[in-house]
């Protein structure tokens, strides 16, 4: 379909993807005395990244290889660290999602006045970090990107957040760092074990997959990795950083947090956690499913009580991500693809909800559900969008989330009917809290209101694409599933093969 990428597969396209935002942030920083220009730079750069990613999306799935694009350069040879990037269907979807949401983030942050240049610089640095996480295939490289995401997010929450922003940002940072430091230990330990066995000291994912581990080694190492991912996803009981971070973050921050950062946890679990320790991972699936199921209900119930709309949506994220993890735990193609699809859809849905809450807050000066109400009266379009995205969030068929959820449920039911039954019961609660939010915001008697105007052009520009994407996913998910089929199958097969190889010793 596309000649350029296919013709020059050796061009470092992926590096280009990573470097573009950095260049953008540099440009921004250099022009920091013209904040107006900055956001244009940011918009252009994020759009460029988005176009490039869509280009890849259109061009690469035809290649039929395990990795559509692959780059591998020696980096820190002394430690055997390589600069290895790879793009397969899974990363492709995540990259496109990232690029898309980042454009939205820039658009939604258009009115930011406070230290605007810094804001956009941070936004773009974060984009590099997130993209890097989705592309890295060397454990240390991955870890570096994993941590690089944190600081921009920390600043985003801490500088542009709301009242308890400092608490929230620190909590976010320390919580996630706690997990990732453990993972670092795990990475290094795996590295030595592999080196001792083979004499090759490397952090390459593909090589480390071959490491033979005793049960206890594998248990502890996998545990170290898993903690990091679980915190990031997050699963109950490691989730309490999320509501605080979401509530206090500025809109773009919430958008990125929900849309991207949480996904990195689930992504990494799939890419690294399961494939490095296939046997232990298999054993851990019931545990993961249990946590995830508890999370689905726990988060939904807690969400039901929230007064702050953002907090409510934050908890809904926890609940939805629980379903994603249930899909992982079911460990078959259908559930896996469903989980990945749900990750994308959830990113857009939840992101859009945060965006809408921000728009709503701009008009009402509050997010307190007790004070809101009757918004339809003066902002019908905004309310309609809120309703639309809420419906997607509660899993109305035909919209994005449903496609993922139902695949997860079908897949899960086949292997673990009970999990699926429990998971589907969560649907009622997700409807309960979502409708509660809708009821308190757009319906009911007129609540607090500062200015009464409906969406403007920029806001339409933000919301309409997101709505289209959700409808697309909901009605014709094949577009997004097609690149996944091969990848999901190979993830399962690779892991299975590794498990069998490990079992043969």
């Amino acid at each position, binding site marked *: 379909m596309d000649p350029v990428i296919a013709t020059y597969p050796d061009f470092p396209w992926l590096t280009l993807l990573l470097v573009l935002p950095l260049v953008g942030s540099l440009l921004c920083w250099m022009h*920091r005395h013209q904040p107006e220009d900055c956001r244009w730079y940011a918009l252009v750069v994020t759009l460029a990244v988005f176009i490039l990613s869509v280009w890849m999306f259109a061009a690469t799935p035809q290649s039929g290889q395990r990795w559509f694009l692959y780059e591998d350069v020696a*980096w*820190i*040879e*002394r*430690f055997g660290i390589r600069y290895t990037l790879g793009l397969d269907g899974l990363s492709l979807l995540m990259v496109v999602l990232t690029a898309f949401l980042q454009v939205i983030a820039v658009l939604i942050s258009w009115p930011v006045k406070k*230290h605007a240049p810094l804001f956009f610089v941070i936004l773009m640095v974060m984009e590099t970090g997130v993209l890097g996480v989705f592309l890295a295939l060397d454990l*240390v490289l991955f*870890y*570096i990107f994993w*941590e*690089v995401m*944190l*600081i921009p997010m*920390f*600043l985003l929450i*801490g*500088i542009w957040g709301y009242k308890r*922003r*400092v608490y929230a*940002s*620190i909590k976010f*940072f*320390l919580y996630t*760092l*706690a997990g990732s*430091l*453990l993972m*670092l*230990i795990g990475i*290094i*330990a795996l*590295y*030595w074990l592999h080196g001792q066995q083979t004499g090759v000291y490397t952090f390459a994912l593909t090589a480390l997959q071959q490491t033979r581990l005793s049960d206890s080694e594998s248990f502890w190492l996998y545990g170290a990795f898993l903690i990091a991912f679980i915190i990031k996803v997050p699963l109950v009981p490691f989730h309490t950083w999320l509501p605080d971070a979401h509530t206090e973050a500025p809109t773009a921050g919430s958008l990125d947090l929900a849309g991207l950062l949480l996904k990195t946890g689930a992504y990494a679990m799939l890419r690294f956690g399961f494939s490095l320790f296939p046997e232990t991972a298999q054993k851990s699936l019931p545990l993961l499913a249990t946590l995830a199921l508890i999370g689905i209900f726990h988060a939904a119930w807690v969400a039901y009580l929230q007064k702050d709309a953002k907090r409510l949506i934050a908890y809904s994220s926890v609940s939805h991500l629980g379903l994603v993890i249930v899909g992982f735990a079911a460990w078959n193609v259908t559930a896996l693809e469903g989980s990945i699809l749900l990750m994308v859809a959830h990113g857009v849905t939840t992101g859009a909800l945060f965006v809408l809450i921000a728009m709503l807050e701009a008009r009402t000066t509050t997010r307190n559900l007790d004070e809101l109400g009757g918004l339809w009266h003066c902002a019908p379009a905004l309310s309609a969008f809120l309703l639309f995205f809420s419906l997607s969030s509660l899993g109305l068929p035909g919209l994005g989330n449903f496609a993922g959820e139902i695949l997860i449920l079908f897949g899960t039911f086949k292997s673990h009917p009970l999990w699926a039954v429990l998971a589907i019961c969560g649907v009622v609660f997700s409807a309960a809290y979502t409708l509660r939010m809708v009821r308190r915001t757009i319906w009911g008697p007129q609540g607090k209101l500062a200015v009464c105007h409906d969406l403007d052009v920029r806001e339409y520009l933000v919301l309409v694409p997101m709505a289209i994407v959700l409808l697309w996913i909901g009605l014709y998910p094949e577009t997004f599933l097609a690149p996944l089929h091969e990848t999901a199958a190979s993830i399962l097969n690779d892991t299975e093969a590794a498990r069998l190889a490990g079992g043969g010793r």
Partner: protein
Amino acid sequence: MSLHELIALMPVLILALGSTVILMLGAWYPRWRILLGAGIAVALAAALWAGVSEPPVDEIAALYSAGPYARFFTVAWSLLAALVLLLSLRYGEERRFDGGVYCSLVLFAGAGMSLLSAASSLVGIFLGLEAYTLVLYILIAFDRESPSGAEAGLKYLVLGAIATGFMAFGIGLVYVGAGTFHLPEAFSAALVDGHLRAYALLGWVMLLVAIGFKISLVPFHLWTPDVYQGAPAPVGSLLATGSKGAVAAALVTLCLGMEPYIADIASLLWLLAAVTMLVGTVQALVQSNLKRMLAYSSVVHMGYLLIGVLAVGAEGGGAVVFYVVTYSFATLGSFAVIVSFSHAGGEPQDYGDIQGLGYRYAFRSAVLSVFLISLAGLPPTAGFIGKFGIFAAAIRADMLGLALIGILASLVSVYYYLRVIIIMYMANVEPNHALHPGCRPEYAVLFVCIAAVFFAGVLPGPLLDLIGTIVK
């Protein structure tokens, strides 16, 4: 002493003789800037010589090594002296420092550190250590206008003198046990049944007291915040980086020599490292003064270093050296930011002084944040690679427990580093009073440090390879 040895000694000689010349020059021609320029030139010349010329001998007078390890540190400390002098340019001028004395003292401190790092004998260690310690006594109290300077000088002096006593006692005991001062024979000759004999062990204990004082291991660390706080910031930077780095280098030499039987003292070092990391972290947590925070943070960092020292058999030596470099650049940079903000009236140290700094002094705040992030050990800065190396060595040496304590400490430590960033960027208040806009030499130092921090963080390969070749 042969001519070859003298040639091998040349960089130190350049520093020492240069410092005497500048001392005398200062008496007759007391132009601050010119003297400082001359000092920088001398330091750079020494660094250049050490870096370029291949020494004709391996060891000088059985006291100091002339190997690549020694050369590496000679270059490092000479450059450090140059940077510190550059950093002092405006600082000292505003405080009317005596140019000749100051400059020569800093240069001689550089020489002493180089000697200490190069030492291959206990005598060499003693002399090198004393050489720059003596100089630091004066430098800490160099600002005679500042009351806290005098206090800091006193504290460092008294404790330093006591530490000297311990050092000498330890060396004496080791000597009694082995009959030689030369390394590594001083330990290998003191073996009984493959273990260190009691005299040598006692000697180690005494040595560790002294070393613990110098690199601020708990419980010998209490002076650190006070002295950092009271000392002039450029001197503080020297104190926090070179003074500790040189001792760490010597410690690596000591331990590298006794690699086969380091198990004899491993449990002690383990305990010291653990206690140091934990106590330092917790104490840093409640500081509200930038320099004191940096002091406690340096305590914690020395704890990490000790992990590397313990794992000396598992490439820990290289990790320690790399860590020293990364830590030094970040710390030097942090002090440089303080220097650049300070004016004749004083230094901004208190968190109240740096509130909301981030937007008014964008570059320096950003740079300080990067240094702190590097100290916290987060990528993509040098600190991460440093910490990575240390933990990698620790895990390879099967010290998972210590690695976990280190992880815990660095997790908590992130809190106090971030706190500074929070205060700079997330407080909605303007700084209490106007801070100095800084001058070019200070910016130059900042640029050097930031470049180093990023370079060693993103492309650490060359430096790691270099260090790998010098530490065997």
